């Protein structure tokens, strides 16, 4: 019976369009119709998982290291302005605050390392 269910769902998916729209959603299995209704209710807002933020912070750190190598004397306010301006617009306020704090802390640490090395 399970095998039949598997074949049924695969067949159902095989015959559906490659893109979901309001007009064709009725052609999809119920599980996808429910998912689509939920995403539509969320206005297809970006899905920001903990892993997304982990990548975002790693990327941010990477860019700060690059910036410190190329322009170590850049003032802290310009560093913060530059990095925060590069963030996607959908980042929520509390994460912008966290990233600002992270930027300041990381830049200060990098500046200390640079001063010690010099």
């Amino acid at each position: 019976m399970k095998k039949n269910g598997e074949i049924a769902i695969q067949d159902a998916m095989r015959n559906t369009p490659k893109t979901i729209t309001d007009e064709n959603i009725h052609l999809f299995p119920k599980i996808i119709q429910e998912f689509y209704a939920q995403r539509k209710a969320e206005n297809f807002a970006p899905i920001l998982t903990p892993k997304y933020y982990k990548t975002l912070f790693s990327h941010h750190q990477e860019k700060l290291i690059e910036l410190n190598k190329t322009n170590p004397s850049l003032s802290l306010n310009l560093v913060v302005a530059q990095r925060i301006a590069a963030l996607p617009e959908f980042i929520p306020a509390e994460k912008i605050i966290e990233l600002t704090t992270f930027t300041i802390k990381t830049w200060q640490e990098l500046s200390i390392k640079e001063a010690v090395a010099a």
Partner: protein
Amino acid sequence: MIGETYEFTDVENGREFIFISVGKNGKILKQVVFEEISIGIYNLGFGDRIDGQIEDSVISNNNDLLKIMNTVGAIIYDFFDLNPTCSIEITPVDEKRARLYHTIFKRRIQEINRIFVLEGYDSSYQWSEFKVGMSYQRFKLKKK
């Protein structure tokens, strides 16, 4: 050659895809999302859709890992067809995934290299071309 995949569907302009895994634990809705981290750079998010969220650390154990990874690979191809100048970053959510991604890239590196540039970010905070045997914290994929 990607191999056997599930049929998948684009939900939102080439940035969000879904498919249904079918296996010993039944039907599981899988979601793949590409969320921007900076202009032209996207994070690859992937997991089970549970209670309205992507659960990216869950182990669904549906006995179809290869088919799932093939499907994610096919979705990545579609993403690049729609967004050819963008790059994607892949960050393993845990050690188990890190080993899995290293293994997949090791096995598929020749196929990947034909179309993409695969880089790894190592512990010395440097991006470099992916090399078998090296350990990376994150991966970056872009079209050649």
